[in-house]
């Protein structure tokens, strides 16, 4: 048996609840959550779709780290030690803890409003990403001629198109925690993806570059690489941000 301690929320009521889960070999935290939802408490809610770490639905905080629940093996986190200072506060809230059982702490992704239980308001995150107008403009008829793109450029762009918009980066970002107008790592990484792309029009790149030359943009970043550390797809937003800072500087020089 493994214990899952879950931060629940319904309206303004917040509580921590502990469930026993029957562990199976290779079980992920997402599967454990399903077991609870199906066998113990049908009201527990969380998002999911692919169960294979490709769709970006299931980002949450497990043992205080933002991760994809479907990619997190129960066996890897059940005996993990959480920072003592942080753990204390949780333990006080649920006294029924059985010391003999292994325990996993599950909470919603930070920096986004909780809707209920583990479901957060992703609209805020999407709005930030969409505000940069993340698309290629093509005015001419499409479908006739392909663009020629160097394989090495394709690989550079791929680092950023690998983003699945799961928002784990946003949940780990100190700047996003401070300022809800800060574009955040995912949106900024996307800006850089479009700046790199030879299919972007000159005027769109200029517009993007000046748009992010602000404290809500590239200058809002603390450069602490916390987004890079948690990205399940190894996207490096901080690298993109630094490149764009350089570009804006060299422009104003």
């Amino acid at each position: 048996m493994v214990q899952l301690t879950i931060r629940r929320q319904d309206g303004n009521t917040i509580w921590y609840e502990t469930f026993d889960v029957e562990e199976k070999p290779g079980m992920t935290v997402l599967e454990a959550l399903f077991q609870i939802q199906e066998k113990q408490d049908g009201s527990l809610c969380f998002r999911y779709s692919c169960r294979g770490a490709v769709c970006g639905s299931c980002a949450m905080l497990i043992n205080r780290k933002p991760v994809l629940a479907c990619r997190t093996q129960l066996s890897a986190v059940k005996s993990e030690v959480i920072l003592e200072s942080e753990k204390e506060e949780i333990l006080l809230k649920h006294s029924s803890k059985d010391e003999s059982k292994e325990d996993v702490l599950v909470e919603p992704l930070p920096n986004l409003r909780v809707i209920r239980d583990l479901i957060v308001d992703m609209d805020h995150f999407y709005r930030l990403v969409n505000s940069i107008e993340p698309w290629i403009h093509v005015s001419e008829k499409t479908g006739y001629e392909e663009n020629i793109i160097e394989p090495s450029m394709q690989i550079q762009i791929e680092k950023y198109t690998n983003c699945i918009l799961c928002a784990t980066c946003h949940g780990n970002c100190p700047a996003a925690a401070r300022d809800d107008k800060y574009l955040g790592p995912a949106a900024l990484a996307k800006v850089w993806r479009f700046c790199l792309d030879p299919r972007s029009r000159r005027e769109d790149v200029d517009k993007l570059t000046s748009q992010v030359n602000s404290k809500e943009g590239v200058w809002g970043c603390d450069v602490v690489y916390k987004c890079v550390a948690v990205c399940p797809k190894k996207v490096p937003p901080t690298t993109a941000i630094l490149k764009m800072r350089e570009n804006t500087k060299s422009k104003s020089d």
Partner: protein
Amino acid sequence: MIDHDIIVIGGGLAGLRAAIEAYQLGADVAIISKVYPIRSHSGAAQGGINASLGFDDSWEAHAFDTVKGSDYLADQDTVDVLCKEASERVIEMENWGCNFSRQENGKIAQRPFGGAGFPRTCFAGDRTGHNLLHTLYEQVLKCNIKIYSEWLVTKLVIDKGRCAGCIAMNMADSKLGAFRSKAIILATGGYGRIYQRSTNAMINRGFGISLAYMAGVALEDMEFVQFHPTTLLGTNILITEGARGEGGYLFNKDHERFMSNYAKDSMELAPRDIVARSIQKEIDEGRGFPGGYVHVDLTHLGKDVINERLPGIRQISIDFAGIDPVKEPIPVQPGQHYSMGGVSSDINGRTPMPGLYAVGECACISVHGANRLGGNSLLDTVVFGRRAGIDAVDYIKLIQKADGDKLIEAFRQEEGRLQGMFGGEGGNFASIRDELQQIMQEHVGIFRNRKGLEHALDEIRKLKKRAAKLRVQSKVKVFNFELINALELQGMLELGHIITIGALAREESRGAHYRTDYLERDDGHWLKHTLAYKDVEPRLEYKEVNIGRFTPQRREY
């Protein structure tokens, strides 16, 4: 009442492509999706999308491979369209920003795929679906198309013989909405999750297909279900054909390369259905490992080859099975992968119900016949998604919106039905689902025979009775998944029933439908499409196959 000219149900590739086309042609179009569009199953596709871009390749060659792969059940007029329009659609995705892998000369790269005579599969690493889906979604954002995200459609409304709208539930507060439209484009994807083992996303339950069936529309060729030979033990995440393509071996528990007993020449690289049947046979006859699996062994390839060619597979094995293929073999078993059948629809995505279109995996157009080729279903979504968009825009010009009485009536009925699902005691959703999945896997799976299918039919009838008594305990309004699961379960049972009845009736083996009591293909009796209609029990009728330039031959590789 919410009004739009055209409503697209589904935010996967097929739905998004249809919506973009309708928007560009000036229609008032909206998308309803039970998950945020980029979470759709389309994003999981790995291998690629087919188009005869090469100068020495041709759409005719592509069409031949598709028809042969389909075991001659595909309609050849629709296959022609699929293959003719392929290059334009793929290049269009490139123009819109899809980050396809490139050749040295900067053109779109193509790789060989099972059952194809040319390397014509375009790809974006091993994340083709993800790249296509995000690209289309970006274009949807650019068009500013209205999206009702996390809304579950529960009913299609028919008024005077036409599809006049739908009823959907906003998952965020469990309230119903009545959507009035002149046309609906159904793009709700496959039903993999009615099987115990499936490579599909957890959300692929076929509920959308069942809505069309409940509205009186025929479902076509539902007994044709594709099984992939190698899915990871436990989660059944896809282990791509590439693992064997790069030289991986299949071993049973006695460390025997058992493919030599089934396909001496092509060994591990025999066609999908043959490898799937071989693995299942090893397992069924006790030569699999306890728990029902065999090994794909890559260890002899060495770390460098694995890292360079199969990094995704290595990562999946580590993350989801705790196994590093550099050091250990990967435990695999066959799993449900794709639904060839679906809502009967034509070359423009029209179903027999005026005002209702169906495209993508939820539809049967039929371009895949009895067996789909890898790389053809992503293509199917964009080709026919676009065509349905065009046709729907023409169609809505000719008709008036329904007055809405019927819609309001349906809204009230749905409200009553949902209310009635709460309270009291009565079964657990998960246990009924688990039993259905197990029955489908065991008796309506890779190997089928009369006895097993009849047994499955009995069991499914019993499960339907139990499901009718199912009651939802949780009363929360915000994201009540117990309610959503209970609603969708009814559709899953319906589809299980239809697949089983169709499989029982079809006394031959063709493509993915394999009857151990009728081992041969029987063109004399069975070169025809199955149509299933709603009745007390699903009622079967049959329809001719469109045969064009390719006359049926034995399918040999």
